[in-house]
């Protein structure tokens, strides 16, 4: 037990360190790179938005539900803001708008003609009789340029063009009340987000209405929950079956612990090494790397199966197998993708530590392990070497012929997400998640000037039906205001004109003096600064998609109801405004995935070559190394070809899983190709049978998971193991002793 006590204590220390220091990371940028920035980020303000639709034919019922749920949401720490109906701008914000109206919405010279001023005065007088007249009527009379009036109109516009009833937003198809919420600015956590969603749904049911939720964090939480649930189930099922299998073959609880302990040490050490090297551990690394490190379970099994006499040789082969596989995975560093670099380091470290730990922990003893009689499955394959070369070429040809554009997404959202989005698309115009229009400027002024130039293009697109509407800061704040203001008439000229306009309306001409002073104040008011954008909730909403970096300012313009993306793209690019870019984010992501796949395949190919070089040096027998390489390559090529023929293409994670298959091939090849083991056929076949059985149990359960990512990894490795065993059991015609 002493042999196990020390490793167990070390494992305990490692797990404690993990709990204290490891920081999981889940951002898409670690996989996709900068293109992920436009794909969305669940930590950004925009992606903390949540929309709740409460559906009922009974309008009063859904309005009551909206109010009740909005009240409840307002009291939640996880929610920072809730809006179930139109919200008036605050009085202080209106005061700020009034003072800076000429900078926010400068009047044009046409607005200051006598005719225009006269019309505005007539309208302002009518406004006095409105209920709102006591609030804005006076200011509209003081400023008949239309500057303030237009701003008030814009501020009163409903989000997404929704109508409202009794102060509650109603969907476009009049089936639902809509509540908008912003989640608190704190790190995304799946469990608490799911709890919030569940509680909203429960309350909606209590009100007797149907409910739909939409928001990036909600979707992320549902994906994460579904993936975790599937992964947990797969892990539990696989672990349970593995325990049963290993208990049956090992016949001893002590050996069971001995078998798992090196793997646990390997995974724990790998986690800490990645944390040290990268400052965090990506969830992809933890999940994927952990699964791949399952190969480490083979090492103790080999040592136990071969017994005391062949102990040293078996240790050597185990270490050599671990090192060659580790070299293959370390090649992932060349991909430059943080999540994959981490995975490479994780697997390499895990396997190396597990191999060393196996050597130290597994006792040197003869053991009577149970195992399937794999030696009976040896079969004859004449001209095996030539056939393997042919299979490699053929397999590569099949894989290379796969259409490169058909790259699957990395993570598939649950099916109900698409249905919910389709439902929401009928209720309110959603911003396009596929087509992205961005605009940059070295400072805020330049950004707004460029938006001012872009605005007529977008307005024309709306009027021509290419686009439903759009949202950008430049609709609220005008660009180039200083230049426009410099062209306006001086206060005395303005005084002359408004005097005429007042008389034309039968109004008091002396009031022109007050209007002149207001005009002068507006002309000389300070401009809008970036700090102003943060000063009010209203400005923060207007600037929600604005980002400032060292290189300048960037805004992603929201496009709603985009019907003709190609036409809009042509219209935008034809005006050639500097800093404006429109692109299909889905294409970019697909291209990024295609590029990622190429990079990963290239570097893993380089890694495989390096691994085989290490193998040849380690074995000191290049012919034997070539034999192992050829058999492994043939089995891998068949696996890849079958995946391609079945699935259309091989994804990034499948490529990484195929690297594990290569590692497995090296492992099996080392033992089944050893010419010195002819006299102990049973031991070598027994150890490989035990390893293959363990791997198949673990990965075939994963292959049955409901999440596509787990299915792909599981099926790839399971198929690879079967094909690898098949090729390794094949013997050329001339050799009668079972050697190569």
């Amino acid at each position, binding site marked *: 037990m002493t042999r196990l006590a020390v490793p167990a204590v070390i494992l305990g220390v490692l797990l404690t360190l993990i709990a204290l220091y490891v920081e999981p990371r889940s951002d898409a940028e670690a996989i996709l790179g900068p293109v992920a920035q436009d794909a969305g980020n669940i930590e950004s303000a925009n992606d903390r938005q949540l929309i709740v639709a409460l559906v009922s034919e009974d309008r009063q019922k859904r309005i009551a539900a909206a109010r009740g749920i909005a009240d409840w949401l307002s009291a939640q720490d996880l929610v920072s803001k809730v809006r179930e109906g139109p919200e008036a701008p605050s009085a202080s914000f209106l005061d700020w708008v009034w003072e800076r109206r000429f900078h926010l919405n400068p009047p044009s010279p046409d607005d200051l003609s006598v005719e225009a001023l006269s019309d505005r005065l007539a309208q302002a007088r009518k406004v006095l009789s409105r209920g709102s007249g*006591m*609030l804005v009527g006076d200011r509209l009379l003081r400023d008949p340029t239309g500057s303030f009036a237009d701003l008030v109109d814009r501020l009163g516009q409903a989000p997404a063009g929704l109508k409202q009833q009794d102060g509650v937003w109603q969907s476009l198809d009049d089936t639902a009340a809509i509540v908008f919420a912003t989640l608190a600015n704190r790190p995304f956590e799946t469990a608490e987000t799911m709890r919030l969603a569940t509680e909203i749904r429960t309350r909606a049911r209590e009100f007797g209405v149907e409910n739909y939720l939409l928001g990036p964090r909600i979707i992320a939480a549902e994906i994460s929950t579904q993936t975790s649930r599937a992964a947990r189930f797969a892990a539990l099922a696989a672990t349970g079956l593995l325990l049963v299998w290993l208990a049956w073959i090992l016949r001893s609880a002590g050996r069971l612990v001995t078998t798992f302990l090196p793997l646990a040490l390997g995974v724990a050490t790998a986690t800490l090494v990645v944390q040290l090297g990268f400052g965090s551990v990506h969830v992809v690394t933890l999940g994927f790397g952990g699964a791949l490190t399952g190969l480490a379970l083979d090492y103790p099994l080999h040592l136990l199966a071969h017994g005391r006499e062949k102990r040293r040789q078996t240790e050597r082969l185990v270490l050599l197998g671990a090192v060659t596989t580790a070299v293959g995975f370390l090649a992932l560093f060349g991909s430059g993708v943080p999540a994959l670099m981490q995975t490479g380091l994780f697997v390499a470290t895990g396997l190396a530590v597990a191999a060393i730990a196996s050597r130290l922990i597994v006792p040197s003893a003869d053991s009577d392990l149970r195992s399937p009689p794999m030696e009976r499955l040896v079969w004859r394959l004449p001209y095996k070497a030539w056939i393997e070369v042919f299979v490699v070429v053929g397999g590569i040809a099949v894989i290379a012929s796969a259409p490169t554009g058909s790259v699957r997404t990395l993570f598939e959202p649950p099916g109900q997400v698409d249905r919910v989005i389709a439902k929401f698309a009928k209720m309110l115009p959603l911003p396009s998640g596929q087509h992205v229009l961005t605009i940059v400027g070295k400072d805020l002024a330049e950004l707004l000037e460029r938006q001012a130039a872009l605005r007529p293009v977008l307005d024309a697109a709306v009027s021509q039906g290419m686009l439903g509407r759009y949202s950008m800061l430049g609709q609220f704040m005008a660009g180039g205001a200083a230049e426009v203001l410099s062209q306006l008439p001086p206060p005395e000229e303005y005084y002359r004109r408004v005097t005429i306009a*007042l008389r034309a309306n039968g109004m008091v001409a002396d009031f022109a003096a007050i209007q002149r002073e207001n005009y002068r104040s507006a002309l000389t008011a300070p401009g809008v600064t970036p700090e102003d954008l943060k000063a009010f909730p209203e400005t923060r909403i207007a600037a929600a998609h604005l980002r400032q970096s060292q290189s300048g300012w960037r805004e992603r313009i929201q496009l709603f109801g985009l019907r003709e993306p190609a036409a809009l793209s042509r219209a935008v690019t034809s005006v050639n405004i500097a800093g404006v870019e429109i692109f299909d984010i889905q294409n970019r992501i697909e291209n990024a995935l295609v590029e990622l796949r190429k990079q990963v395949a290239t570097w893993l190919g380089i890694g495989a070559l390096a691994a085989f070089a290490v193998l040849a040096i380690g074995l000191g027998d290049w012919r034997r190394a070539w034999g192992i390489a050829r058999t492994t390559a043939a089995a891998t090529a068949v696996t890849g070809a079958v995946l391609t023929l079945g699935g259309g293409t091989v994804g990034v994670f499948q490529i990484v899983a195929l690297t594990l298959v290569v590692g497995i091939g090296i492992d099996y090849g080392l033992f089944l190709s050893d010419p010195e083991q002819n006299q102990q056929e049973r031991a070598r076949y027994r150890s490989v049978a035990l390893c293959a059985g363990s791997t198949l149990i673990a990965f075939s359960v994963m292959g049955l998971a409901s999440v596509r990512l787990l299915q792909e990894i599981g099926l790839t490795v399971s198929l690879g193991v079967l094909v690898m065993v098949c090729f390794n059991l094949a013997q050329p015609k001339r050799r009668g002793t079972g050697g190569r």
Partner: protein
Amino acid sequence: MTSGTSPALCPAKAPIDVGQALDARPGPQGKPLNYREEIYHPAIADPVVTSGWFEVGKNGSLIRHQLKPVAEVTRIGENFIFQRRESEGGENSIFPIPSELAPLLSSLRSIVQQTSKKTLISYPHTLEANRSGWRLSVQTDGSGARKNVIVLEGCGDVLNSVELQILNRERRRIIFAPAS
């Protein structure tokens, strides 16, 4: 009733103090409470006139049903005014209530709801009486040049009108009268 005038002679006794004046109510009109509003502004020579009736909404907000010049409904909450004009497709608009108008709207609400207007008693006030009736002036906001004054006029325990005066700006006088 002619606009802007109290009864020629007021036979009733004037209130003895501000509290009694604040307890005055519009005449026995029951619900709803009809009104005529005169809006004066430095830019216009003749007042803009509106008319309609007030009621109290389900959640205690004051609802103004304007009949002339254009039909519209305005719901006056604690902090916001909600406006709906059928002639414009029934679209609602919403505006915040500035601080200088809050006392006037609060007074109107308490008049219609027949609750106490005693909150006004905390402001500087002047009570005058003559043969035409009494007049209570309450200064509700002393910010700079904008001295806002609420003026209540009545005869005995009958409140005839409420007026908000914003210095150098508009003046709104609400006269409780039969709907025109």
